[in-house]
């Protein structure tokens, strides 16, 4: 597998989150919609990783966005909007988890279903099987390791942002990430 990666090309012109937040605060609904769409996958992903249930993750994601929109005037920009929103999402997901009680078994089957990535049925079946193994392994990690790994790998957040979201120091976020990766390698060898 080739691991040599090219640096990111210059980003296309698009309003950054800070500009969109200012517009959304002034009542610009299209700006708010861009923000919601931009972070939808990240919020859902975080809720799913915490809850292990697609329906509950949707409920938690919806709550997170509603809470964020209500609190938008209080957003001070001390962290990025994405970090602030994901922290709200983590709180919403934990709230749902408390209401539900025990953590349920992760519903894996519909996690990976992107025909475009593997048009061949046999290849798709293999990918689904691999997706299930990966997701079960991630779901088996302790919560902070699970969040540190997924926020770092799938959301591209730095350790400071991960620490803000999981409620730890930056050093602890780094340790959680590396321990999580080590355990995943052991489980998926």
């Amino acid at each position, binding site marked *: 597998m080739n691991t040599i*990666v090219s640096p990111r090309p210059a980003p296309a012109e698009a309003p950054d989150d800070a500009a969109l937040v200012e517009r959304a605060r002034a009542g610009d*609904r299209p700006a708010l919609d861009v923000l919601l769409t931009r972070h939808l*996958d990240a919020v859902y992903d975080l809720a799913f990783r915490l809850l292990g249930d697609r329906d509950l993750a949707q409920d938690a994601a919806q709550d997170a966005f509603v809470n964020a929109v209500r609190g938008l005037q209080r957003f001070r920009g001390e962290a990025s909007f994405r970090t602030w929103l994901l922290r709200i999402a983590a709180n919403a997901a934990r709230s749902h988890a408390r209401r539900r009680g025990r953590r349920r078994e992760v519903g894996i089957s519909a996690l990976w279903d992107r025909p475009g990535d593997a048009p061949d049925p046999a290849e798709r079946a293999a990918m689904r099987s691999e997706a299930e193994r*990966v997701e079960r392994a991630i779901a088996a990690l302790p919560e902070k390791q699970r969040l540190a790994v997924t926020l770092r790998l799938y959301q591209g957040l730095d350790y400071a942002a991960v620490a803000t979201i999981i409620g730890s120091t930056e050093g602890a976020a780094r340790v959680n990430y590396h321990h999580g*990766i080590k355990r995943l390698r052991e489980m998926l060898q």
Partner: protein
Amino acid sequence: MNRLTCESVRDELPTLLAGACAPADAAAINAHLAVCPECRAEADFITRLRRFSVAAPPELALRVRAATVQRPRRWAFPARPALAAAAALLIALGVLRLLGTGPDQIAVTAPADADALLPLPTGALPGADGILAGSVVLESLTDDELALLLAEMES
């Protein structure tokens, strides 16, 4: 990025694989990966994991948009229904007083032959279900008019 250790390279692998590294940092990390099989194995493993991200179901975007629509500002007193009922009663009292009927003649529920008793203007008649027309008038008040009415009620 100066002389890289395996630890610092592994710290930055997710950033590199997301294509978010600065060009100089990406070049330095790639140079390290070319000569360090352990870090290369970790980069391969992370690449494998990154294939399986979770995307939000399409219907979630619609749900979120619908849930975050800002509704127009409305009066939101805790006892709004009670206040509305009291205000409706006051309006009805005023209407009846204007028409020369005394308080002792007021009935909240309209009599069956109300039309025959009093030739009231259409807009002030109680409805067939007993709800006073004043409550409909209240809904059409402006914020200022409603504030004035509530102030009068308090006094």
